[in-house]
């Protein structure tokens, strides 16, 4: 494989609080290849958005990167000065946030917001920037872009606004876009349009995407690979089809079992008993162990020693079931789904 566009090594994000240090992202490593779409799924609080925020250098204090490295094109960026990091944001890494209704400043026209982004990063004249802004709006499918450019955000519908947000993220031609729940706030009918648009644009521009969402449907539709996060850690990472159809980690297995599938007749959806631990009460060993149905197959190790990612089938899972010399049953048919 060629050099990854983005490489995150052992990232740890912590929040100092009066009750002690909370570790919200714990030893996360992942890579994104040029042009690749990496989905990151997990429940709220699993640390997926914080991972994204850490990558674009927008962790909100008191949150901070405690250890680990982030490399963009092989260059380390997590230790850059604020000003140097600013030049990367928008220019090399773009971002799309959850709520298009609140992502745009209500007091400025969308044209002004796009051109200011272009002028910040690219060496063009204001006229060129405006022309580029109109082109961008055309590209994201906003009709009569040359007129709409002078409109204010409140004059657009939610879906249209998210299109504007996408055009803003693409304005300075970044190589990577961090999309944090880009469709969650939208109507279901519009979600598909936005996802299709995002996919199309990124393919055309060769842009990589880190797609953070809790919606497996969106992941299945869009991503090449997917990382499943649980309690600040990656539980499983691998090609999207593998993770969906042959999940390895017991948590992923449970997660897939909980998704309704319109195509197939499943008698009933399964659910994972219990809930994700709070950050101040993460169990020792594997974070998932209190809820795990297959704990008995491994023994005490699950509650004492933390598993790192190991090869499991065609994916990688952080589970002792797959350590060498553990139970031979690595072929794994997810029995809990059938149950």
């Amino acid at each position, binding site marked *: 494989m060629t050099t990854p566009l983005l490489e995150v090594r052992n990232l740890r994000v912590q929040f100092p609080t009066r009750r002690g240090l909370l570790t919200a992202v714990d030893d996360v490593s992942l890579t994104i290849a040029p042009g690749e779409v990496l989905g990151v799924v997990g429940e709220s609080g699993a640390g997926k958005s914080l991972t994204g925020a850490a990558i674009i250098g927008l962790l909100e204090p008191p949150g901070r990167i405690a250890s680990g490295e982030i490399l963009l094109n092989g260059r380390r960026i997590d230790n850059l000065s604020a000003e140097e990091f600013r*030049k990367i944001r928008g220019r090399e890494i773009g971002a799309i946030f959850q709520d298009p209704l*609140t992502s745009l*400043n209500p007091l400025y026209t969308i044209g002004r917001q796009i051109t200011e982004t272009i002028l910040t990063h690219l060496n063009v004249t204001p006229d060129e920037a405006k022309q580029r802004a109109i082109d961008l709006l055309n590209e994201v499918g906003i009709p009569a872009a040359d007129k709409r450019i002078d409109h204010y955000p409140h004059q657009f519908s939610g879906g249209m606004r998210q299109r504007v947000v996408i055009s803003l993220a693409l304005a300075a031609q970044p190589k990577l876009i961090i999309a944090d729940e880009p469709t969650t706030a939208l109507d279901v009918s519009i979600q598909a349009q936005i996802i299709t648009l995002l996919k199309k644009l990124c393919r055309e521009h060769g842009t990589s995407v880190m797609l953070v969402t809790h919606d497996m449907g969106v992941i299945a539709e869009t991503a090449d690979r997917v990382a499943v996060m649980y309690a600040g850690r990656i539980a499983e990472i691998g090609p999207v089809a593998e993770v969906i159809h042959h999940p390895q980690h017991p948590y992923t297995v449970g997660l897939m079992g909980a998704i309704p599938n319109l195509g197939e007749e499943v008698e009933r959806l399964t659910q994972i008993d219990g809930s994700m631990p709070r950050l101040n009460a993460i169990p020792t060993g594997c974070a998932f162990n209190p809820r795990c149905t297959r704990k008995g197959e491994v023994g005490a190790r699950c509650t004492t020693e933390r598993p790192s990612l190991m090869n499991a089938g065609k994916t990688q899972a952080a589970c002792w079931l797959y350590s060498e010399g553990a139970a031979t049953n690595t072929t794994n048919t997810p029995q809990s789904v059938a149950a």
Partner: protein
Amino acid sequence: MLAFIIRRLLQSVLVMLTVGFIAFSLFNFVGDPVSLMLPPEATQADRDEVRKSLGLDQPFYVQFGTFLGNAVQGNFGISLRLGRPVSQLLAERLPATLELAMTAAVFGLLVGIPMGVYTALKRDKWTSKVLLTGSLVGVSLPNFLIGIFLILIFAVWLGWLPSFGRGETTAIGFWTTGFLTTEGLKAIILPAITLGFYPITLIMRLVRAEMLEVLRTDYIKFARARGLTNNAVHFGHALKNTLVPVITITGLQLGAIIAFAIITETVFQWPGMGLLFIQAVQFADIPVMAAYLCLIGFIFVVVNLVVDLLYFAVDPRLRVERSGSGGH
């Protein structure tokens, strides 16, 4: 937009009617205008005579109507203390109060906004913490005490600035101004600082709170994610959004400043409406009290209207018609 303005106008009229009613009640029920107008040895016949001539035998609503009619024409009767028409007294003293209030307001904005922005952007710096605690001192210092301390330091001990009056004024038509002479300018410094002190602290805390609120919003986070410079994010985006609500409060403060001028004017013997009013309260000079109340109410209403109109100029969400593809 027109509907909005009409609605605001109706509301203003309602507020003015309320204020007018209170003033009318003061005038007619508290003051007993008959005994105010007649010597104590007057007979009952005299009283009835006066009662009739004043229209006090009329039903209540007719009296209120007459009062309003007079009030609109600026006719509030005769001051009991000074024996001159109230409207004339107020008109003489209006320029002094307005000049003082405006200077204090400008002073408050010029100092308050930068301090608020600074303390919001550098919230962890010790200078911000000092300013913030200092602003509590500002809130805790009664207006008159600031005046006294300023007089003690700059007038009594240092002898730099005058401690009372307006200095030399120039008449331009009906308006007398103190801005055109050195003496007049010197005279306004201490009162304006005294009166501007509270607005400074208020505006500073307001700007800081609003700015911190705005800095937490998604569009600021998104502006940062687009790689805009700190200056563009802070002054291009955050400040403008901050100032929208600040306009309202500052506008409303202008009314409050005019009312607070009562205290400053007393401390500095500034010949404005406030001094007139406080003397009226001490001497139970009801016509002056009633008229002052109506005037202050009127100023509040006008300021409110202007603030609403300013909103249209600043916030496109109100300016542009709510049609189009708005909503979702």
